[in-house]
């Protein structure tokens, strides 16, 4: 059994209408329940906006702390799931469901090492 990190990318600062948000959250709740029942669910959370991020870099004993996300850009990870699956096709099944609930947001699938 492999584990996969499914990251949801969303545009910074764009908050959908409440009705759209409510429907998406309800859909995601159902998907999480379904994943739990299937033994595929490991962990999931949404994140606060990327401008609340802090980056620390340690170099030769000195640390540099910067305000904001490490990667510049207009889209950042807004939430993530950790899923157990037999293989990539198994992970794709869950990524597709999440992607449909959050359409048109892209879902990135990364295999977790080990």
């Amino acid at each position, binding site marked *: 059994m*492999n584990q996969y990190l499914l990251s949801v990318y969303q545009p910074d600062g764009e908050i959908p209408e409440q009705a759209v948000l409510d429907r998406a959250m309800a859909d995601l709740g159902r998907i999480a329940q379904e994943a739990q029942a299937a033994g595929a669910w490991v962990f999931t959370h949404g994140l606060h906006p990327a401008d609340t991020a802090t980056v620390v870099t340690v170099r030769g004993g000195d640390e540099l702390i910067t305000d904001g996300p490490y990667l510049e850009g207009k889209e950042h990870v807004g939430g993530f799931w950790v899923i157990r699956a037999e*293989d*990539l*096709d198994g992970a794709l099944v869950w990524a597709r469901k999440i992607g449909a609930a959050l359409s048109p947001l892209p879902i990135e699938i990364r*295999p977790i090492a080990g």
Partner: protein
Amino acid sequence: MNLEDVYRAEYGRAVAVLNRALGDLDLAEEAVQEAFAAAVTAWERAGPPPSPAGWIITTARNRAIDRLRREATREARHAEAALLHARDAPPEEGAVPDDRLRLIFTCCHPALAVPAQVALTLRLLGGLTTPEIARAFLTGEATMAQRIVRAKAKIRLAGIPYRVPHEADLPARVRAVLTVVYLIFNEGYVAGSGPDLTREDLCAEAIRLGRLLVELMPDEPEALGLLALMLLTASRRPARTGPGGELVPLAEQDRSRWDAALIAEGQDLVRRCLRRGRPGPYQIQAAMAAVHSDAPAAAATDWIQVVRLYDQLMTVAPSPVVELNRAVAVAEVAGPAAGLALVDALDLADRHLFHAIRADLLRRLGRAAEAAAAYDEAIAWAGNDAERAFLARRRAGLAAE
């Protein structure tokens, strides 16, 4: 059968079988390559064995077991047990899918970029070496090697499965496989001029893969359609270039130089498709190619039938490029003015074919100045020298008319 033929025919099968037992494409390839290296001396001494493929697979399996014993890690012992089990198990037959089918679906998984799918398919199923693939795609060897290494690593680390996809995914995944094979064919065919014969090898390799798909997926009519399309297209190759390597368009080709055996085989496959009654884009394009093959001279082409097939293609796979080609057929049935009206309605100004077709239709309508301008546009967008030379000749011919 000499060793080279056995290699071409059986490399993919041997890698596929070994990969199932080992779960590692690199190990599988190494074992199979070692087995072929061993065959060079063993077969020279004793002659080829009764079942060359069986000999290669057994030898590769034993080499892999030896190697795993030497390494003797926990994973290695696990793989060794799987190999020993596989050696004693009866060969798969009947409903159990051929390992090569699993391997094709792994190589053409949509999680791999298309150039990686193409390279892996040629490498693992075709047995082409990395330098051969690099030459065929006019890419540096280092770039191609990196592409293949990266793709194999992704298969392993991301867990791209080694099996026939689930029912729900199957149609899209079969389309991806057919696309890869057709890409290989076109890469060899479209640029297939000049002294570089490696590119013709790509056509031959695509046809070989097409035959394999038909064998492995006998219930998939689009696989039949793709093979028929490739055979019928390839049948024209001897007539497609002139003595100086210049392109000869379909209407002007010496049809006595078409390959009659390929045409007969292609047309037979088209008839088999028709009997299935489940048309798809490849089958329809193959049927069009068959209509052209039927005509002893360009003037005898059944254009009404070609237009009908384009109408059908527009319903299953509509695209502006299909509309453009349909306009050419309409021009043959209803005259160049009717064709031009259809072409002018299309938004394809960045395609050389759009301008080349417009130029030809304008020429036939006697609008020479506009035709010349359209040829200039076509030349500016054309992708290779043979096409540019052809268009320039056409443009020069305008003055004479």
